[in-house]
């Protein structure tokens, strides 16, 4: 159990909960729920574009 607790939490597991879970409250500033959903959808595109921009650390060795 301690092993599970100590390992750093993967961002994707965290976002599953923080963006899709939790109580949804319409606050003063709170984004519309649709905005947060869009963040989730955009993440796919975002991460693939980040991966393209950042060259592989092994790229120079080959």
């Amino acid at each position, binding site marked *: *159990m301690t092993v*599970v*607790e100590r390992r750093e*939490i*993967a*961002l*994707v*597991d*965290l*976002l*599953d*909960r*923080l*963006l*899709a*879970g*939790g*109580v*949804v*409250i319409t*606050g*003063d*500033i*709170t*984004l519309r729920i649709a*905005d*947060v959903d869009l*963040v989730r959808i*955009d*993440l*796919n595109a*975002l*991460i*693939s574009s*980040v*991966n393209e921009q950042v060259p592989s650390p092994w790229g120079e060795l080959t």
Partner: protein
Amino acid sequence: MTGLRYVYAVCRPFGTPLQAELTGVAGDPPRLLTHHGLVAVVSHVPERDFAEEPLRSRLEDLDWLTATARAHQGVIDALTVVTTPLPLRLATVFRDDSGVRTMLQAREADFRRTLDRLEGRVEWGVKLYADERPADAGTAADKPASGRDYLRQRRTSVRAREDQWQRAEEFATRLHETLSAVAEDARLHPPQNATLSGAAGRNVLNAAYLVPRSRSEEFVELVDRTKDETTDFRVELTGPWAAYSFAGEKP
């Protein structure tokens, strides 16, 4: 300038102080705002990041999103040690303390009902992965002697893959039934994209289980046993989490 109010969670009053070195979102240590016997856990955050317009663009910045999500989780984690928090969705922001109080009052009955339902419970995450390539994919690598050979090999390989998915589905269903029997409640999250998670294999089950703390050890052992049952699939356990996936009203 006093900034905006970022709310992490709502809880009942708790006696134990939060750990002193806790830094919240935007580096502001969480404060407790009590209203009508409910506590909102709040940080003061700057308008330049958390007002509606900047917040929307900030959320698209992966580094910022990561830092904010981790800070949010850090506070929820610390709360989980001393109480059963009701976590709010990421980036729930109010203009001032009075906005937070108004919200607490408006949702008071909901909060109390949900806090009762979650009291003493934690969430465990269980994911199941299947290898992208069936075990006997090696046969397809043998050089086909003829077109007919090629088609036969291809058919075998496609069939092996279909079998693999079917067995993965069956295993996932069985696993979910077994774990649901011990858990009080369960939620299925969409399977994770491998690009996003960086995990090997295809995610066939991404589930969350609500388990009383008193039964957590039993639950973890049960997951461990299913790990030993299979060499074809990988079972991953995360937690204990605050009950994020069960914080909304029951559908």
